[in-house]
């Protein structure tokens, strides 16, 4: 029993990371009907920005909670800017072209970020400094959780609530919802559609950056191709929950994380990556709109 509970703890932590990345996919899809395949690479950039920020302010040698927080915020701001640049430079010019053009552009941006990353950061794995020294907290019954896992859970839950607040309770959130319903009508109501779309990319990229830093904190090996698999899995998580649906992305991420850890723990670790795509196939066959989705899903 304690083994099962421990696996659940592992799964929920891992799942909350998928959830953070999946939110970015789902928001962009909700507004542009675009699968932003470069999103996983923004997550990678988040980890690297965090690494450089940590080295810059010396968080590696003298870890304090304030410095760790600064690292997180710096990575989020950096990726927010990257998100805005990607949207303006790559997606905006093809927004009125066919949806396929935008999709291929997304794949192009993804390859650009991965190979640009190899060029700039170097192809070898780098090691993320221990900006929060790890310690272990016992939950009783042989179940334990590390303080880093607690941080992952707290920060990701906090960010998800912050996002919910922005989308439901602010003017810009209202505008985002309006744009997601109908660009034309939103524009007629005086909403600057371009600005809202850029804002969505910034928001999504910031969440991905946070996920990057949180994962690097726990698994300190980072490399320029680290975003590919988590990116794909988070995409599956977004589809699983119902793409375009924000609570759905969170639910999909959690289901995904737990499913993965249970497969590793009880079936065979070789099926770790396979389970994501099995889930994708099953959900497309059984309920193409996703668990919480309502509108007809687009198959990509």
């Amino acid at each position, binding site marked *: 029993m*304690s*083994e099962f509970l*421990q*696996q659940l703890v*592992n*799964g929920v932590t*891992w799942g909350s990371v998928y959830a953070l990345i999946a939110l970015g996919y789902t928001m962009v899809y909700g507004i542009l009907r675009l699968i932003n395949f470069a999103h996983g690479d923004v997550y990678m950039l988040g980890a690297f920005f965090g690494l450089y920020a940590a080295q810059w302010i010396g968080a590696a040698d003298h870890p304090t909670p304030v410095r760790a927080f600064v690292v997180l915020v710096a990575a989020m701001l950096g990726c927010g800017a990257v998100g805005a640049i990607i949207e303006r430079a790559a997606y905006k010019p093809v927004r009125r072209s066919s949806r396929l053009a935008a999709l291929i552009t997304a794949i192009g941006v993804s390859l650009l970020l991965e190979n640009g990353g190899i060029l700039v950061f*170097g*192809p*070898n*794995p780098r*090691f993320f400094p*221990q900006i929060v020294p*790890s310690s*272990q907290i*016992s939950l009783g019954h*042989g179940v*334990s959780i*590390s303080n*880093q896992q607690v941080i992952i859970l707290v920060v990701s839950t906090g960010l998800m609530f912050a996002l919910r607040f922005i989308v439901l309770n602010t003017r810009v959130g209202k505008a985002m919802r309006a744009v997601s319903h109908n660009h034309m009508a939103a524009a007629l109501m005086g909403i600057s559609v371009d600005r809202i779309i850029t804002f969505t990319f910034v928001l999504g990229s910031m969440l991905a950056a946070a996920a990057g830093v949180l*994962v690097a904190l726990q*698994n*300190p*090996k980072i*490399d320029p191709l*680290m975003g590919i698999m988590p990116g794909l899995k988070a995409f599956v998580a977004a589809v699983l929950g119902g793409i375009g649906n924000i609570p759905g992305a969170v639910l999909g991420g959690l289901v995904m994380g737990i499913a*993965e*850890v*249970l*497969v*590793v*723990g*009880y079936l*065979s*670790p*070789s099926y*770790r990556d396979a389970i994501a795509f099995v889930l994708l196939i099953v959900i497309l066959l059984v309920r193409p709109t996703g668990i919480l989705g309502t509108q007809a899903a687009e198959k990509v």
Partner: protein
Amino acid sequence: MKSSIRLNLTLAAALALVLSGCGSTPNEELVIGEYGSLTGNDATFGTSTKTGVEIALDELMAQHQDMIGGLKVKVVVEDDQGKPEEAATAVQKLVNQDRVIAVIGEVASSRSLAGAPICQAAGVPMITPSSTNPRVTQQGDYIFRMCFLDDFQASVVARFTALHLKLKKVAILKDVKNDYSVGLAKYFTDSFTALGGSIVAESDYSAGDQDFRGQLTAIKAKHPEAIFVPGYYTEVGLIARQSRELGIKVPLVGGDGWESAQLIGIGGSALNGCYYSNHWALDLPDPALQSFLATYKAKFHSDPDAIGGLAYDAANVLFTALQKLAEQDPDTFKGLSSTKAGSDLRKRATKKLRDLIATTTNFKGVTGTITLDENRNASKPAVVLEIKDGKKVYNTTIGPA
């Protein structure tokens, strides 16, 4: 008019360059190939090999002005990015384009296995400094190795765990995509159960994985007294860290895939009290080893790892064989020159070179005395290192049973 002349001149110059690139180089050279993971997940394997060969070459330079038998020695290095498929391409290029007379590489058995058939087919001797999987030298009679084999290495770790640490219940966590890791796990199981121990859990991962908590949680539930992790240093470091976070306090034991300067950097204090088998221990007072250490430190300002030491030995074994060939049979030796690439003379010369490498006996290397057996493997004792306060400390030497 003027511009067209300039254009013609440029074209002519370009053509000359291309032609000189294709044709035989005017300088007669001995071209030796080396391939390894200079980048990628286990990059220190490739870079250590490269530095080891470089030091051997430096010494050759100092003693013989870079010459063997009147020919200049040149080493061409190819990066395989740590991927077996790239390794095959790299070796193809070395053999077919650079026309090398011998190949040094690789560290990882999967990548040596990718390169070996190509060298064998081309009749080019290949020396792997540090691939321990038995299948590597079984690829053919042109393939040699400078280190011990996995069946021996696994039996060393098994004997150490059972007899020195006196532990009976061990779990295994192996890299399922890696020939080296799978081989070690299998041989370890055989030896350890023969010594009366039992394997209480076996799980696996794939190189490049980030999260091992699922496997470790399942292993923890079986209450092993030690965990055997026959992987490479990057994953081992992460596994050590995550196992400690999950409250697993038993020692991790492993093989020479742990040998890297980066191991401690990744695993940190989580690795204290863990053990692994290796080709050398830096704190042993062997004079050849200590003089190599001094040279290495003077050049690179850091400690070498055993991978570099083995590469140094491999290069020296090759140089020695070349020198012997130059003395015994100068005419055949000339066939190795780059100008003779592709000729029958060259084929005969590499065959002779192969025969000479195969007769290597009692070669005093920095990683021990090297004598190649009839299967072209070096049989050497292994040392077991303990990690204490972030330092690798010599624990014991275990010879063939």
